[in-house]
């Protein structure tokens, strides 16, 4: 969830052109674009929303180096911030695009990282999703007046609304951690035995908790009741195997009705292979 106010300054001219073309003008009925599958498209409509347009934000970010001691377990704060900012920039631009469309929110947000050979230590951070608007109107935006964001698929979005909750925002927390190397003597001593590596256990534990706590903080600041669909991912990206980024991503939700119930599911056995 981005903290920036949307403004069209960051968007290229081509983006504004594309988004304005989607709107219904005097003679035309307008057009919607989306990366929804047919299944998602149908369910988003069933949920009382219509797709407006594919919205997309990108940032090419150069991730600098940060010194660290070879043997130490430590968070690499500068890298944490860098990877967070890069995603934040991409998401802000995506929200700005949705704002230009006057959409209520964005579903199916996907965060992606693209590497190009010509950009050593650089990567393109992308946020892409489908902006939607409620057909009956209503108050769907966040308390700061921004369109809601969520990584929920069309199907999950419909299901969430059935249970009396609405998405508020995609929340994420990260932590780039350096796992200290064991020194040579220690390694040789332990070699034949199977035992826990407390140093590494502690390190990974701490890093994961930091990432999750930061995600929860974002959800709280949105005034959410909870976070659904949390995914915890650990990746080294291009940074070498002793540096790992822990990322926690989920969708913060708020209740829209006092009752939260779900119809009892039917049991089926699919003939699909």
């Amino acid at each position, binding site marked *: 969830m981005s903290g920036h106010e949307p403004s069209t300054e960051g968007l290229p001219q081509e983006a504004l052109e594309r988004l304005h073309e989607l709107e219904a003008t005097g003679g035309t009925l307008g057009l919607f*674009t989306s990366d929804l599958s047919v299944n998602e498209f149908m*369910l988003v409509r069933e949920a009382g929303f219509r797709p407006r347009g594919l919205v997309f934000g990108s940032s090419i970010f150069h991730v600098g180096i940060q010194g660290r001691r070879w043997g130490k377990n430590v968070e690499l704060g500068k890298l944490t911030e860098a990877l967070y900012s890069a995603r934040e920039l991409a998401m802000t631009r995506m929200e700005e695009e949705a704002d230009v469309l006057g959409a209520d929110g964005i579903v199916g947000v996907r965060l992606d990282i693209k590497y190009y050979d*010509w950009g050593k230590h650089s990567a393109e951070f992308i946020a892409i999703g489908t902006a939607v608007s409620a057909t009956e109107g209503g108050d769907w935006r966040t308390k700061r007046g921004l369109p809601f964001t969520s990584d929920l698929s069309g199907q999950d979005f419909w299901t969430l609304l059935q249970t009396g909750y609405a998405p508020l925002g995609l929340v994420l927390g990260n932590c780039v951690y350096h796992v200290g190397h064991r020194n040579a003597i220690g390694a040789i001593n332990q070699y034949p035995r199977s035992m826990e590596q407390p140093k590494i256990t502690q390190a990974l534990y701490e890093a994961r908790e930091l990432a999750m706590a930061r995600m929860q903080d974002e959800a709280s600041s949105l005034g959410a009741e909870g976070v659904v669909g949390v995914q915890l991912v650990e990746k080294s990206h291009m940074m070498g195997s002793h540096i790992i980024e822990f990322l926690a991503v989920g969708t913060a939700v708020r209740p829209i009705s006092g009752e939260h119930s779900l119809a009892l599911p039917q049991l089926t056995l699919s003939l699909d292979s």
Partner: protein
Amino acid sequence: MGSIAAQLVSSHEDVVDHTKTSAGAPVPPTGSGGDVEASVTTDLSVDEWLLVDDSGYEPCGLLFGVAVFHIGLVGVLTGNGEVDTLSSALLRARELATGKLQAEARRVGATGVVGVRLSIDQLGGKSHLARFMAIGTGIRPKGAAVGTESQPATPFLTALSGQEFALLLRGGFLPVGLVMGVCVYHVRRLGPLTWLRTYSQSIEMSAYTSALYAARELAMVRLQAEALGLQAEGVVGMTTSELSHVWGSHVIEFFAMGTAITSLPDRQDLLDPTFVLSARDNVVSDPGAILGDDERTRDDK
């Protein structure tokens, strides 16, 4: 920008015998309602076939269109910017392949082609030749005879599967065509001074950002123009990709594709979705799919 030699090398019209269908059997007699039933080859799965059939359509053959294009670069590119000639070449090559697919569809009396896959295969070595192929299964309303007035001049193409097509129809929509947009962009090498300056910092590379952002948006603008030209109501199933083909990583093709649809108000069925709990073990989707380098996966479609 350098000059490009991008040209059509060969077309599959030179090799295909038009008196035969893709299955090798002779083309059945037209108009008579067909007392001779030719067998039909398709790449539909059983589920797809059943749902297409349930929607009132029948498959009429596995169809394809091929174009071989020279997509190499002649000369040296300087500066950041779109490589116009390559953008049009890449679009033209795909349009040729899909155009031939449509011609095949017309020939067997199909009103549309589902499950269309576009593939690009480099033909290897320094030839810089690439084969663009569009392949899919033609369908037509059941009981329609070939060559009647009810057959549209341009059969629709869609990447949607048989199941997605059936669901779309139930929801009161019809595919009108495959829409695409291309933008080939050249990224200049970073000079040594810039590299040194940014080496240790974590910072956004704004020049690159705006360039690549604009290139992707251009591809999407062009896709939209195609959809507007078809007078579609919307586009579903859009995909965007970045490909370098034979050029090396400094030249990138931004490609966007989707299926344009239009609504049929009199055909709208109430969907009334219900929750089901499958008695089959669930496959846990890849947690890394939300971000990073993996192919996107979503809930079961």
